[in-house]
């Protein structure tokens, strides 16, 4: 499929530049980044959003996928550790394989760490978008394997936290193994006399 898409005109990449309120736009000239993205090969649409992750932003992605017949989506916003799942779901809703989505981090690793270097930060954001688009050209649809979950839980530690977690899971009908190192459960709490703020016994 990738080879087929290497034909000119087949790749249709949409780039979405997020302002994140002032988190990004306060440092980076998002309009300049968007304008730059338009000049990149295979980019079929560029949209600048106030908050790409919010519903209006996500709707714009979905709309653009349909309108411009996009087959790759690049979002330049925050760290993929927060919103990669959000955007994968969003593009999937619009009928695109979630692995045809690529995220470019221009917040945690750009606007937030170069607050006094506005011009250079904007240049860096452009480079990062260029890199994201370059990677997007080679993205391929993937299918995620589904694995079954063994219906049992292990709780390591029989102090107050472990006891509570084990009880909650067991009350929910799950099999629980509570493993405690000492000969008795209770942990440090069992060695306390009274506990605050209720001033009642610990055990």
């Amino acid at each position, binding site marked *: 499929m990738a080879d087929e898409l290497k034909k000119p005109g087949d790749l249709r990449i949409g780039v979405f530049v997020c302002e994140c309120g002032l988190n990004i736009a306060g440092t980076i000239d998002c309009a300049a980044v968007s304008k730059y993205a338009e000049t990149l090969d295979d980019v079929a649409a560029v949209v600048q959003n106030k908050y790409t992750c919010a519903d209006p932003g996500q709707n714009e992605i979905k709309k653009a996928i349909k309108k411009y017949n996009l087959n790759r989506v690049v979002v330049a916003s925050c760290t993929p550790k927060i919103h990669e799942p959000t955007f994968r779901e969003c593009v999937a809703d619009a009928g695109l394989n979630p692995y045809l989505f690529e995220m470019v981090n221009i917040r945690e690793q750009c606007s937030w760490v170069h607050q006094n270097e506005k011009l250079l930060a904007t240049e860096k954001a452009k480079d990062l978008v260029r890199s994201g688009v370059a990677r997007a050209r080679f993205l391929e649809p993937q299918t995620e394997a589904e694995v079954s979950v063994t219906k049992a839980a292990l709780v390591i530690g029989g102090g107050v*936290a472990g006891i509570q977690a084990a009880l*909650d899971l067991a009350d929910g009908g799950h099999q629980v193994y509570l493993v405690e190192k000492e000969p008795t459960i209770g942990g440090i709490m069992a060695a306390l006399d009274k506990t605050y703020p209720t*001033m009642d016994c610990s055990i």
Partner: protein
Amino acid sequence: MMTYSEVEAVTGYVGNFNVTVRKKARYVDPNECTSCAECAEVCPVAVPDEYQQGFSSRKAIYLPFPQAVPSAYVLNMDDCLGNNPIACGKCADVCDKNCIDYDDQDKLVNIEVGVIITATGMDVYDPTEYDEYGYTRHENVITSMEFERLICAGGPTEGHFIRPSDRKTPQTIGFIQCVGSRSRDGRGNPYCSNICCMNTVKDTLLLCDHYPGIEAKVFYMDIRAFGKGFEDLYMRSKEEGVKYIRGIPGDVTEDPETRNLLLTVENTTTGKLENHELEVLVLAQGVIPRRDNDRIRKLLTLSTTSDGFIMESHPKLKPVDAPTKGIYIAGCAESPKDVKDSVTQASAAAARASILLNAGKTKIEAITSQIDADKCNFCGICAQVCPYNAIVSSDRKTKRLPVIIQAACAGCGACAAECPQDAITMRHFRDEQILAQIEAILAVEPHKHLLTFACNWCSYAGGDDAGTARLQYPTASRLIRTMCSGRVDQKFVLHAFKLGAPIVLVSGCHFSDCHYISAVHWTQKRMDKLWNKLDKLGVRPDRLRLEWISAADGQKFAKVMRELDDVIKNVTMDEIEYTMNVLAEEEAKAKEKKTKTRVEVQA
């Protein structure tokens, strides 16, 4: 429930963990034991009772405390004289149920679970480091944990609070706060232990309740009464007459006659120096990560923050998830917290774990590796490299291809980077994708850029951490994220230099933090080879950098970026040009060799 047991090994992945638990020899059958206590009565060995903080003794065979669960005795073999007619064996003689077995042995039990909750708890700070407080030198200086036992009705004094030196109930008592917490002098820990303020407030109220008229003084930096109902409790303590003195004493001495404690403190509210004489002094010892945290961290490939507590997936949005899917954290293992917060977090962890358990299935990210049958020459290196044993090795003789067990592959990419034939493709982290990023980054003014490969779990997250903390650093860095630094192929680095990169930085998890068990070892090996190669080619090896940066190391990330920015400026254009030329020549030579070999093979 498995008490007196420890997790020994964990393998597998979300939904399918295989856990080996060592059930330590208890020497008493907990199902049969009725806690009649006859065994302990005849046991001739007396040792300090850990539960009572050593204020009283227990026997070698003992019940940890009356409410212990399971309610069964345990025999500590280190204390026991042994079942030898000359030595002892008395307990077994008196046990009607015959539930004492001296030949009991550790048992290994295998269990299969879908999710794991880590609630491994905390340890308390040892205040002997603060020598000026005289703990262990002055008998009447005690810790807050010792106070708990001395005031408890189930304690060694049945709740009659006495001081150790003369066993009299004191009329004056002091508390020193933040012992081992909020410290900036290299001793103890820099963080706030969260519970000690309110614990001391509680202690003073217990004293006022048991001994009306007792004079209690609390020496503090700040009283942090931030939780629901906490301020009320603090006010009640003040209304009961407890004196709160803002100032931490510098030195504690003992009056040799009265064994009272004399301390001098600068009251920072009044600015005056004060002298106090107290009959007992309680040190509000801080909370520290479990001393054996490293074991559990390695077993579950968790990370710790700089203070040593286990790190969550996200401090705000995923506070009970570990970065590894299917593993959750609760209680003091994550950070110091009180009972209510521990219970809250435990319920949260249980709820998060229930999502997976109820669903009964989950999806695994499509980032696993695949073999290209046309390129593989059956060398078997991939199977050796794989930290998960997820590759069934190839066979050169029978020309059997290696097989990748998709469910066991975690997607680190070490196999793809090590494969000499480029016959392994990482789904979603393919060579073409990464090379395209390198080319795009270095397409404009390459000599100004710091091309950085950052592993998803630690270094990239460390970069995010720097961002969240708004740590400022120069703009040269351009990151390429891979799942593991073990994915960084030699050719990526050489390609970057060929395109004019002044510096290439490869960064990954610390060896002990590697999220792919041992994949990071391959990073190190590969870097060693690359440094050698660069040196041979006449390229300064120190232009290739390797840094271990953890997810909580935002400070280090920013520091490395600042340092390397200076290094970049020292790389001359001539050097860069030379490197580009020499690597282009190398590539041309390699290509020629390949074509030659191919022609020979065809011939």
